[in-house]
């Protein structure tokens, strides 16, 4: 089974839990994907446009941004490779949700594992709107089954008042 794990820099531990759940079934070929989100760079361009500036920051600044993005991607994928030895790594650039779906097609994934959203130290969200737009898009458009790796929820769901 070809399993594609979507890394976002905050979810390696959750991916480990997910793959542990799958072990024991058929042999797994793991793929790790990290997408450099170009949305922020487009937002910077819109700001330049609004301030009536020509397209593109100065080349030295663009180079710095490229370097920072690449270093972050490499670090995340290296972390993943360290946890999942032998896993294939895929680095993409663009809109994360679209790149993940397209990579799942190209890589012929049998299963995509995705987390609801990046967790940056806050309490993992449960309930309405707990699934971010990237995971939502992957759930809606992936060409194969998707495993949504939710954070463990301790409490029961409140019963309806009658």
């Amino acid at each position: 089974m070809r399993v594609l794990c979507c890394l976002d820099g905050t979810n390696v531990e959750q991916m480990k839990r997910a793959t542990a759940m799958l072990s024991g079934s058929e042999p797994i070929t793991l793929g790790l994907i990290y997408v450099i989100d170009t949305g922020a760079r487009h937002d910077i361009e819109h700001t330049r446009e609004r301030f009536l500036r020509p397209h593109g920051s100065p080349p030295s600044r663009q180079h710095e941004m490229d370097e920072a993005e690449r270093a972050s991607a490499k670090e995340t994928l290296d972390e993943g490779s360290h946890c999942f030895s032998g896993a294939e790594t895929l680095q993409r650039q663009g809109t994360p949700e679209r790149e993940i779906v397209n990579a799942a097609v190209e890589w012929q994934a049998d299963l995509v594992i995705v987390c609801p959203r990046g967790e940056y130290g806050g309490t993992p969200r449960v309930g309405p709107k707990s699934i971010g737009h990237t995971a939502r898009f992957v759930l809606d458009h992936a060409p194969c089954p998707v495993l949504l790796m939710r954070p463990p929820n301790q409490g029961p769901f409140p019963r309806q008042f009658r």
Partner: protein
Amino acid sequence: MFQYFAVPELTKTFLAALIGILTLVGIMTRPFRWNEAVIAMAGAGVLLLLGLVAPADAFITLARDWNTFLFFLGMMGISALAEAAGLFDWLAVQAARLAGRSATRLFLNIFLLGSLISMILSNDATALILTPVVYVLVTKLRLPVLPFLFACTFIADTASFLLPISNPINIIILSRFPLSLAIFLRLLFLPSLVVIGMNVGVFFLLYRQQLRGSFDLGRLPILEDARRHQVYFRYTCGVLVLVAVAYVIASAKQFPLSLVALTGGAVLLIGALSWKTINLRDLGKRISWSIFGFIAGMVIVVRSIEDTGLTSAFGNWLLHLSGGTGAGAVIVGTAGAAIGTNLINNVPMAVVMASALGSIQHAPIAVQHGFVAATIFGCDLGPNLTTVGSLATMLWLLILRRRGIEVSGLDYFRVGVIVTPIMLAAGALTILLLL
């Protein structure tokens, strides 16, 4: 052309109004994604070719706005030379160091840094130079990028009426309606603090989940590396402190701020060339020359509309809507400027408003002050509503979205729609209380 033919005055008036309105609609809708500067200069060119504006008249009009043109030049030069010194990178790293390891404190520090830069170097420097610097920093620190990016973009406008030099728009309006520094600060400093506080508060609320984490100080770039040339860096800091003091004194003495900006830029340039941190070619590339064409075109077009009486009619209409009261002036001025600035970008809106407000000079002083302060406030803060600056860009993004293409920019819009009306209302109310 019409100098050589006998054309009725009414026809000339109609044509001038038509060309003026078409130019404004062109800037608003930007057909074929044409650059605004091209549209504005084309409008001015047609007016000159048809003889609807005399070349001498156009020259006098442009010469009258010398303070605005030179301020733009000086401001962009100072920002570019400060960037070449590594000042923005150094300040961003310092902000991160002072935050300890807390993402929340770094977020607050970025707001404070953005406010400081907007106040002294204008909102352009925050939005265009600090934003990519912060993007690189938070990417290296592996923090969520979007909240920090939005913080920079929003605070650039929110903090842009702390001082007259905090936004070139202020210079455009104050060149026509000079306010003493005391009145400017009395009417706009406190509202600025109020809206900055609200901006920070609402953003903390919106992004509280993403800001709870911490970052590894080891990921921070080395502070000394940010300074590209040690001596020039110190020189730049010293000159900028002097320029900031000179700005305040010049504002208080009603001395042209453009001369302070140009002198500061020239002193920095001498240092930069001496220590070879930048050459003239690179500096030239960092200055947006098309802005001068855009403003020149707009000024000539608005001048021709002035002759038709449309702008004074617009001013009288605003005065009528305000009911001739200070409170009405603040509400109408804020709403009009904020809406207009989201339709045609804040630079042309400021030029139009500056012309329209010419007809309120017979109104009581409180009404005049109310309109001027509200126009500055609305033109400065209004762009936060869409942040993309024009209806055209917004429509373009919506069209792309409808075609199923994921676009950025709409995320800004969602935040702007929540935050900006609240800030506009609170700021207008504060101005009202201070009037």
